[in-house]
């Protein structure tokens, strides 16, 4: 489903190279974890996948369902089925959350040639998704993410993911800022989305989240490359020995 080939990317503004030849393949139905120390390029990878303009791809390619997405803007990628759950979801004053959900869902449906959802159907779906994430509907009347706690923001991200039904979910440090109860709720939300035709990429610094979202594969990003890949045990190994041991191995 996702093939990242020799991906090089730099910060557009100052040319700093962050990704230095990432190779990664994630199949449909697979849950892949990407781990790595701070500064290894994890967040950059997620932004480059989503198409953020602040980064320039200088070499390599990203194939999604067999086709390159490099020329697509973020909205086109999203409509094609790619979803990034942000590490730090933006607060957007003046845009009511409910209105935002309506516009986003219907924009994607329109791009896929589906009919727009009518308000009652939309409300029903939102209510069900919010209930499953133990979210208060009152929150959805507020401006998007404004004044939400860290945990509320992460739940709101998963809510959007459920409603948008993407083919590929990229979760960037979804565990950061969550207490253990919230973490379980969020992980349950993600696990409910596991399906044979959907791939999930979980980016995380710590192994903790992977106790709840158990990955099929684990990849260690180090200095802008995938330094090591393995099965879920690799995450435990990293937890025990730290990245230092691995660095020695990779170097």
């Amino acid at each position, binding site marked *: 489903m996702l093939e990242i080939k020799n991906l090089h990317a730099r910060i557009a503004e100052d040319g700093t190279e962050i990704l230095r030849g990432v190779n990664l393949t994630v199949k449909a139905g697979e849950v892949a974890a990407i781990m790595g120390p701070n500064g290894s390029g994890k967040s950059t990878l997620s932004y480059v996948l*989503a*198409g*953020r*303009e*602040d980064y320039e791809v200088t070499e390599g390619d990203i194939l999604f369902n067999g086709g390159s997405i490099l020329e697509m*803007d*973020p*909205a086109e*990628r*999203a*409509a094609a089925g790619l*979803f*990034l759950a*942000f590490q730090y*979801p*933006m607060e*957007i*004053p*003046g*845009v009511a959350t409910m*209105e*935002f959900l309506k*516009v*986003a869902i219907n*924009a*994607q449906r329109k*791009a896929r040639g589906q009919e727009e959802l009518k308000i009652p159907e939309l409300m029903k779906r939102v209510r069900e998704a919010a209930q499953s994430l133990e979210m208060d509907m009152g929150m959805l009347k507020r*401006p998007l993410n404004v004044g939400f706690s860290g945990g509320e923001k992460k739940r709101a991200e998963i809510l*959007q993911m459920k409603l*948008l039904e993407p083919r590929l979910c990229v979760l960037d440090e979804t565990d950061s800022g969550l207490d253990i109860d919230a973490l379980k709720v969020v992980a349950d939300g993600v696990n409910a989305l596991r399906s044979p035709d959907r791939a999930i990429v979980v980016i995380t610094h710590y192994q903790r989240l992977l106790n709840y979202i158990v990955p099929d594969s684990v990849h260690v990003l180090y200095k802008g490359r995938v330094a090591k890949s393995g099965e879920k045990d690799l995450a435990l190994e990293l937890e025990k020995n730290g990245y230092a041991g691995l660095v020695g191995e990779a170097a």
Partner: protein
Amino acid sequence: MNIQTQIRRTAAEEALLEACAVRADGLPGDARVREKRARAVELLKRGLPNRKVEIWHYTDLRRLLSAVPAFDPTAHATPREPLLAGAAVLPVLNGVAGKAPVPAGVTATSLAERLADGSEAALLEPADAHDTVAAVNAALAGDGLALDIAAGAVVEQPIELQNVHAGGQAHTRFAVRAGAGARATIVERQTGEGQALVSSVSHLEVGEGADVAWLIVQEQPAETTHLGQINVRIGKDAKLTLFVMNTGGKLVRQELRLVAEGEGSKFRLRGVNLLSGETHCDVTMVLDHAAPATVSTEIIRNVVTGRAEGAFQGQIRVARDAQKTDAKMACNTLLLSDEGSFSAKPELEIFADDVACGHGATVTEIEGDHLFYLMARGIPEKTARGLLVKAFVAEVIEELEHEPAIEALEARLDAWFAEHG
């Protein structure tokens, strides 16, 4: 050898004086009104103000008013659907007041009558030598509407003063008096078709304890010059919300001259300027806090696209005995094009020593982070920008506490963005 003291008049100045000469005899008015008109014409003969006149600094009228079309006696303006559903529309078509029913508690008189019997005379006096908008209007206006809202009347039905032109020239006056404790929502709609010079001068008196919302909605076509002015006196413990929305016009000057003259009066100005194309739009406010314990807040939000240019001048004067005045002013601009511009000039003149006054002005672009976030959810760029622009100004509109007004103005906003965003 002669020393030339008179600067050569521009074609527009000539045309304006020509219009005054042609119109003079046909306009209603007693001796007092005729005298005021003659003085207004004298003021205009000194020439239109240029940028050296401080209050016209951002709108060099002499340079910008490039042409003054002649009156068009064949122009036929038609009333519009009200902006607020269910509002009582009182039309003024090409400067001539139409007849229409008014809500209970409100009495309407044609301004032509007030000019004919001289009761309007005192209001024809320009504030000073640079009060060009008042002078143009005093010299050329022959009609309009006067409304009297009875003391204690609670007028639920919004009233729309609808000033519509169909090209040429249209000069209109409105005079509204809200009696003590009265409540009303008034829309001053400025619209029309074709190339025109429009002037519209309003006088509003908000009586003791009255609560008035006055919404100026200027949506002139791109060929129209609009010179607007509202003069307001706010009485003791009275409340006024003045909302100004500019979405059109070629050259627009919108003057707001207010006196908080009653102790404990509260004033809110909320402004939304949506500027596109080649528009030049200037909102100039002069607010006198003339009595103690008066409160005012002014928030202006501007969206600028194309080669439009805008300006907001906000002058707040706090008189020596207007202690405990609380005034806060903010002007925020969202620039959507490199060729557009907006100038903000807040000005505080404080003669009292126990006051709280503040102001701020910002110019920003759409936040890249916000745009990326919305797009990452599948919202196409244009729609995402629209949402963010709408969010920027909707905050101000939503303060109106009047659901039909909020809906109508947000619909205007959507329409503007669909066309110009």
